[in-house]
C-alpha cells in the first residue's frame, strides 16, 4: 500500500501531512514508529490503574502525534478521551470514547502494517 492509499483507507489527510513533512519517506518513517508508541501502552496502563495524570498526558501526546501525522479519526477520538482526564479523575463515563480511541489506534496500526 502506498502512503497515499494509506491515507485514503484510514480517512486521514494526505495533502496536509505532505505539506508538513515534505517527503513520503519522512511520512513513512514516522508512521512506522507509531504502532510502537510507548504513549499508547502507557495510556492503557494508566487508565487501568487509575493514574489520571498519566492518562491525560499520554492521551494528549497521542492526540498531538495524530494531528501532526494528519490521522484525522485518531486525532479526534484521542482528543475526546483526553478531555475526561484533564482535571484528574474522569468527569463522566469515558468507556465509549476509550473504545473508539482503541479502535482507531488498531485500525491505523493495521493499515501501517500494510505499507510498502
Amino acid at each position, binding site marked *: 500500500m502506498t502512503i497515499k492509499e494509506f491515507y485514503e483507507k484510514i480517512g486521514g489527510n494526505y495533502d*496536509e501531512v505532505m505539506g508538513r513533512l515534505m517527503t513520503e519517506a519522512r511520512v513513512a518513517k514516522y508512521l512506522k514508529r507509531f504502532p510502537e508508541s510507548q504513549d499508547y501502552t502507557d495510556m492503557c496502563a494508566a487508565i487501568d490503574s487509575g493514574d489520571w495524570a498519566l492518562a*491525560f*498526558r499520554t492521551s*494528549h501526546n497521542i492526540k*498531538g502525534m495524530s494531528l*501532526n501525522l*494528519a490521522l484525522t479519526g485518531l486525532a479526534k477520538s484521542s*482528543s475526546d478521551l483526553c478531555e475526561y482526564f484533564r482535571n484528574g479523575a474522569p468527569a463522566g463515563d469515558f468507556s465509549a470514547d476509550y473504545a473508539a480511541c482503541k479502535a482507531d489506534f488498531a485500525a491505523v496500526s493495521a493499515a501501517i502494517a500494510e505499507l510498502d
Partner: protein
Amino acid sequence: MKPYALIVDDVEMNREILCIMLEEKYTVIEAADGDEALEELEKHADEIAVMLLDLVMPKRDGIGVLTVMREKGWCDQIPVLIISGEKEPELEQRCFNLGAFDFIHKPYNRFLVDTRVDHAVALFGYKGNLEKRVREQTEQLRRMNGQIIEMMGSIVEARNNESGTHIRRVKGFTEILAKEVQKRLPKYELDDVTIEKIVSASSLHDVGKIMIPDSILLKKGKLTPEEFDEMKKHTLLGRDLLKTAPCDWDADFIRISDEICHYHHEKWDGRGYPEGLKGDEIPISAQIVAVADCFDALTTRRPYKEPFSVEKAYHMIKGGECGCFNEELMELFELCRPEFTKIVEEKGLEYDD
C-alpha cells in the same frame, strides 16, 4: 554561524518535525522535558535566539518552565513560542501573562512556524539593538552632564585665577578618598552611585564664589576679618545658587551638591563655618571634599604662595594646622597618600598658573 533554536517537547517525533522545519536557518538544541530545557537555558541562554515550548510534559511542564524563565529574566532575552494542541483561551492568556511571545497551535503548519519564528527572532534582535543604543546614549548623556558640571565649577574657579585643573584634581582626590570610605567605613553607606555623584558634585564646592566681589576674591594680601566674613558667605551663596538648579537634575545629586557647597568648610570640632556643625553632623560628602580641597590648596601654587610638598601638606593637615578633621577619615587619608601623590605629580596638573 547559525543562531540557536531550543525545541522543548517530550514527544520525540514532534521535536524531529520541528527540527526539520528549522534546521536550515538554526542550530537546533532539543530538550525532552522542562527540567532539561532549564539546564540548556543555564548553559546557552546568551546564545539561544528562539525557544519552542510544549505545554504538557512530564516533570516540569511548559507553565513551570515559563515561570522560571520569567523569574530569571530570560523571557526578556529569548522569544518563547508555545507549541501546543491546547486551545483554551485562558491557558493562552496565562502563557502570555508569564511572558510567552507567541502561541502556535498544533498541528504544525510549516509556513506559519517558519514565519512566526523568523519574526520573533527579528523583533527580539531589533529590540536588543534598540536597548543597546539607549544604554549607550544614556551613558553618553551621563558623561556630558558630568563634563558640564565640571565646566561650571571651572568657570567659577577661573574668576579667582585658578585653572580647571584644580577642579579635576579635587575630583580625583575626592574619588580616591570616597572609595576608601566605602571600603573601610561602611557606616557611611557609600555605594558606587553615591560616590559618582559626590565626585561630580565636588566640582561645584566653590560655586558660591561667583557672588563674592572681586575686591575680596582677588585680593592679593591677607583678608581683614570683615572681608573674611564676606568670603565665608560663598558657602551659603553656593547653596542658594543650587536651589535654582535645573529641575531635571537628580534629587539625590542636588542634595549632595547642597551638602558639599554648604558644609565643606565645617570642622570636626565645630569650629568651622557657616553653621558650626560638629562631628558627623557634617555630611560625609562635605567631609571628604573638605580634605580634598584643603590638600589641593596646599600642594598647588597660589598667587600668595608656592606649592607645599606632599609630605608637608600631609603633616599640616594631620597635625591640625588646617583645622580639625574626622580622625577615622585622617587614617584613610594616610592610606591614600600614594594615589594622592600620583595626582600631584601628574603632568599638566601640578600647577595652577
